[in-house]
């Protein structure tokens, strides 16, 4: 589904990604872990098409198409979803209205007819249940005055609405208490299927107790320096990142 080869990227004059290689197949959940500043969020941003980052080398193939050539909205329409680490507050735009526009622009891209108000509302009600989010929240201006947990839940609600093929969760666990973490994770797990894939970017192992990954990769200095299964995450939790850094410097 997603094939990243030797991906390099910089922001301003700072090189951050130094040759990432990653293969993701449908149905898989990959966790990207690593110490602060290792490039985890940069990788998520580059995949979603954030313009501040300049790709300086490498390739990303998504379902047979060159992902890096696409505008952010095209990537979303092709099935890439980024759950933001810091969801943006947009005064005056309600989640419902903006989701309706998003769903219909994506449907148009896929050659489907726009949803009428009734079908849209019906779809929304279903997805709301999935992530245990209240409609009153969705009637309000997007994320404005939302708590940290509400913002993240709204991200997962949007993921449910847009039914992406590849979801990238960027530090979705940051700022969540244990209840919110459970609700958000449950939502994500309900959206897991054999047809879609998920990249979970996180600093801590605790999210991976809820969203259990098939693979765990450790990013350090812009490279994947170690890959393994979920046991690797547990090992990192127990030992910290220093032993990885030591391994890298010895090698």
């Amino acid at each position, binding site marked *: 589904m997603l094939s990243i080869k030797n991906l390099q990227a910089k922001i301003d004059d700072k090189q951050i990604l130094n040759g990432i290689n990653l293969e993701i197949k449908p149905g898989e959940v990959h966790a990207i872990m690593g110490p602060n500043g290792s490039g985890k969020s940069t990788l998520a941003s580059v995949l979603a098409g954030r313009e501040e980052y300049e790709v300086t080398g490498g390739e990303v193939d998504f379902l047979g198409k060159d992902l890096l050539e696409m*505008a952010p*909205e095209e990537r*979303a329409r092709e099935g890439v979803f980024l759950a933001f680490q810091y969801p943006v507050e947009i005064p*005056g*735009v309600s989640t419902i209205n903006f989701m309706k526009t*998003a769903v219909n*622009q994506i449907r148009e891209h896929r050659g489907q007819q726009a949803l009428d108000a009734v079908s849209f509302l019906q779809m929304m009600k279903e997805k709301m249940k999935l992530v245990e989010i209240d409609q009153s929240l969705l009637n309000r201006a997007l994320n404005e005055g939302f708590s940290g947990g509400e913002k993240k839940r709204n991200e997962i609600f949007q993921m449910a609405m*847009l039914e992406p093929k590849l979801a990238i969760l960027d530090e979705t666990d940051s700022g969540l208490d244990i209840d919110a973490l459970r609700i958000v994770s449950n939502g994500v797990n309900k959206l897991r299927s054999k047809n879609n894939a998920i990249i979970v970017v996180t600093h801590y192992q605790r999210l991976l107790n809820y969203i259990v990954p098939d693979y765990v990769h450790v990013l350090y200095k812009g490279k994947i320096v170690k890959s393994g299964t979920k046991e690797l995450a547990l090992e990192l939790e127990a030992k910290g990142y220093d032993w990885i850094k030591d391994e890298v410097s010895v090698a």
Partner: protein
Amino acid sequence: MSITTTDKNITTQVASSIEQRLKADATPQRLQALQTLNTLQLPTTKNEEYKHTPLTRLLEKNFTFANEISESTLRAEDLNSLLIDGLEADRIVFVNGKFNESLSSAKSSTSLKIVPLKEAIVSSDLARQHFGAYANFKEDAFTAWNTAEWLDGFFIHVDDNVVIDKPVIFYHINDTQAGEVRSSIRNLIVVGKNSEVTFIEKFDSIGSGNHLSTLVTEGVVHENAGLNYYTIQNDKGNRYQYGLMEFYQKNSSRVNTYTFTLDGKAVRNNLHLKLDGEGIESHMYGLYLLGGDTLADNHTVVDHKKPNSFSNELYKGIMDGNSKGVFNGKIYVRPDAQKTNAFQANRNVLLTDKATVNTKPQLEIWADDVKCSHGCTSGQIDEEAIFYLQARGISKETARAMMLYAFAGEVLDNIKHPALHAYIDKLVSERLHKNF
């Protein structure tokens, strides 16, 4: 006074032209205003109140100040495209500064007296009592200009205890097909106790010539009366304009003003509300969406003179192209005006590097037990928000339109009249390329 036509000074040129136009109409008050115009001189950007608004310079460059009043052959068909769809209103049409009776529909009644102002200040004590009592021509050379020159306009008196359902709409049309137009209109409005009325001003033009309007609207809103005033400036032509709207508010009166500036060359709007009573509520809303080389300047004054009143001001602007926005908001809270609540916000979005805005809040508070706040912001459209919307599959164009429409929406939401809301919402949506 001695005026020579060869003099290059613009004030002298204007004053001379006004004098020629007046002839038999030259009342002592007009001559006094003319004198004041000569003394004050039209403001340059050295004048603090016109620091960012070179209106005088623009007039100097673009006008010859002809003595004759341009004729117009405007017909009913020409007017149709300028009318507001679906709006039931009593219509007063001015063409090149002259009242056009055949295009107008408003009729005078006992509850709503509509009398030509020139006639009213001769025949009505009430009109004489209020005329010139609020709009002080000694404060601004343009007001002096208007006071000396005004050719037409109405005295409108809303009786006590009536609710006027149909708005009264003024269409100000300048027809430049025969050349440059300069028009000056003067209105006087008295809203009686416990009454309610809505006015709309719409400014348009025909032809591609330069044209200039001065408009002074003054009046009083009596106890417990309500006045809604909408101004729609969406003239695609070469409009230059000076406007002053000044209302004196008595106990428990309510004034809501809505000023939409969407086009024109250079527009200066002065809005003054004097809150001389208790329990007054005043709302001032403004939205300016500027492009090309449009200059729009809103100068507002809210003067709280007595305790326990409330004023709220919200002006928002989006500047595109080389356009220039200016906002100045003065709030005075006089020593007697304890327990005043006065709020002001001016928010601006600049879409290009060449667009500019100058915004200045000016609060002068002499009372000590008041709640006042103000906030001015100007910035670019939030790129992070655009990216967020794009990351959900929304095109960049739609994302921008959504953001801008939401920004403008905060003002639009306050339009209470349904047909007007629909009309202005449509204008704004088209301007912002709303496609969602």
